[in-house]
């Protein structure tokens, strides 16, 4: 049963999720001004699913229950499903100009589904059935699930078991008759606080000596022993200013990351999907990363669409829209953005069925997609800053623009002086010009830069992780043969 956006927010209120921020417990985190914009972004995934103009992308028919479910909890049944996933992400990027946080769950479902099938095939375990039952529960209740992979990792030169502190990777600390007890943490977890559930996966391929770290399981967000510490974002406290609006750049929407701590959390067996099968940790990681690298060919493109629009508006409002170099910069931004989309669509179109039956993306093309995402958004936002002008970071505050304090010799107020000197083209008001410049500021170096810049760099794996996969998948020996044939080398 699909939830409405309003029902989603109410469902969060029913959870006893433990959240900490600025050294204090946040009791009403749903309405907290720093957190609520990120909840609105997730809410959009529910709202659009109810709208016939968007339902074709936002929903799908479950292969498990036969019911219509939100596409974020769907198992991809075809390359068409893979393409529609990317299109859905572009749509949501356009509607929120933010990370909408629900992709990690979707990507985890699809990688867990195929990996548990293959674990069972080798070991005769029953993880796949457990996982399908769990996913049916998620689909039936239209839940948001934090697909959690990244461990804190400590000293990167050491394996999990070699760390001075063994908790730096999530691990099994006790196996009981009725389940397992886990300890550790997952770092910079997107949308974790806004999720009903957490689906945990290992973060790297493992060796046998590290089998205690080969663990995958699901728990509710308010399970005993789980708590989250909110990740702060650049300029986040602007949201705490009274009446904050224009200076936020994007008042309504935002992203969210947190440190998720597992302080000896008990997990019953029916929620355990991997327990010491160390030789499958790499498969799960690789498949999740592949899907998530595909995702970025949709979500960042949608945000890019908004940035391109903002840059074009800034040009209009600055009176610079007819300058040939400005037009060319907008063409370049569009070219870069659509190149990312091409990669997202291409790795989807070249997808293939797994042994379990759901569809996996083409791994080489997905890694090329994400490698481009580590670069192009930086160039897109650099060009937006270029077009916007330095004024986007030197303007007075919203309060100055609204101030009645008389400061001029003829009784002019601060507000009047600001409106006089920050006026641009007569096509619009000073306020509208300030609004679009603040939007660009926010995405370039404010709260939204977390999602558009650094997340583009490191989310779904840092650039070198993709280069390793590209090297593995590059088929260089076959290319050498091609060259030999053409050059007449025997």
């Amino acid at each position, binding site marked *: 049963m699909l939830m409405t956006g309003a029902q989603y927010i109410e469902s969060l209120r029913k959870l006893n999720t433990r959240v900490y921020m600025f050294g204090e417990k946040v009791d009403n985190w749903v309405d907290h001004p720093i957190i609520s914009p990120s909840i609105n972004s997730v809410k959009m995934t529910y709202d659009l699913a109810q709208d016939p103009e968007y339902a074709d992308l936002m929903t799908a028919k479950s292969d498990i229950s036969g019911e219509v479910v939100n596409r974020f909890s769907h198992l991809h049944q075809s390359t068409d499903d893979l393409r529609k996933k990317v*299109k859905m992400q572009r749509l949501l990027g356009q509607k929120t100009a933010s990370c909408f946080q629900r992709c990690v769950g979707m990507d985890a479902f699809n990688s867990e589904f195929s990996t548990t099938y293959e674990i069972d095939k080798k070991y005769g375990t029953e993880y796949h059935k457990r996982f399908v039952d769990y996913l049916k529960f998620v689909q039936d209740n239209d839940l948001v699930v934090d697909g959690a992979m990244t461990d804190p990792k400590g000293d990167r030169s050491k394996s999990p078991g070699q760390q001075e502190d063994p908790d730096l990777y999530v691990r099994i600390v006790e196996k009981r008759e009725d389940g397992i007890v886990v300890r550790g943490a997952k770092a910079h977890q997107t949308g974790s606080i806004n999720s009903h559930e957490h689906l945990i996966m290992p973060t790297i391929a493992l060796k046998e000596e590290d089998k205690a770290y080969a663990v995958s399981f699901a728990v509710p967000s308010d399970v005993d022993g789980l708590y989250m510490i909110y990740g702060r974002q650049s300029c986040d406290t602007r949201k705490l200013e009274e009446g904050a609006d224009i200076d936020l750049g994007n008042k309504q929407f935002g992203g969210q990351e947190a440190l998720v701590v597992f302080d000896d959390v008990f997990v019953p067996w029916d929620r355990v999907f991997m327990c010491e099968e160390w030789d499958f940790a790499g498969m799960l990681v690789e498949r999740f990363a592949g899907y998530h690298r595909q995702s970025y060919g949709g979500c960042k493109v949608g945000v890019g669409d908004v940035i391109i629009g903002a840059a074009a508006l800034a040009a209009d409002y600055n009176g610079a829209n007819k300058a040939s170099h400005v037009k060319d910069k907008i063409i370049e931004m569009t070219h870069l953005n659509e190149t990312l989309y091409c990669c997202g669509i291409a790795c989807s179109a070249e997808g293939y069925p797994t042994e379990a039956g759901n569809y996996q993306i083409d791994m080489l093309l997905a890694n090329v997609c994400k490698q481009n995402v580590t670069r192009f958004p930086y160039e897109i936002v650099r060009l937006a800053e270029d077009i916007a002008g330095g004024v986007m970071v030197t303007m007075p505050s919203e309060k100055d623009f609204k101030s009645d304090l008389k400061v001029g010799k003829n009784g002019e107020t601060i507000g009047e002086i600001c409106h006089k000197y920050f006026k641009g083209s007569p096509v619009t008001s000073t306020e509208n010009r300030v609004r679009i410049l603040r939007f660009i500021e926010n995405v370039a170096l404010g709260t939204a830069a977390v999602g558009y810049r650094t997340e583009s760099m490191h989310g779904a794996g840092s650039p070198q992780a993709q280069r390793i996969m590209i090297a593995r998948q590059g088929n260089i020996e076959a290319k050498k043969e091609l060259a030999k044939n053409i050059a007449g080398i025997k």
Partner: protein
Amino acid sequence: MLCGVKFCGGCNPRFERGKALEELKRHFADRIEFAHAQEGTVYDVLLVIGGCTNCCASYCEYETRKGNIKLWDGSHVERIIDELEQMLKTYNK
């Protein structure tokens, strides 16, 4: 006449898909009932509205008596009006 309507998901539409439907609704006022397509209902015709040339909406699951017509550009509205007018002539006979 009952016309089912199926929109694509609207990831990057080149025109306002909703407005195109409104235009058709206005033109046919009381003569054609437009309803968002649902499985289990048999429509006289299904109108598929896409936001670009790909027109990627899924629609195989819907039943119709006279098939599907597709609109993927704002300029197609007149053509769709002509096609529906022709269908109405047959329908009313």
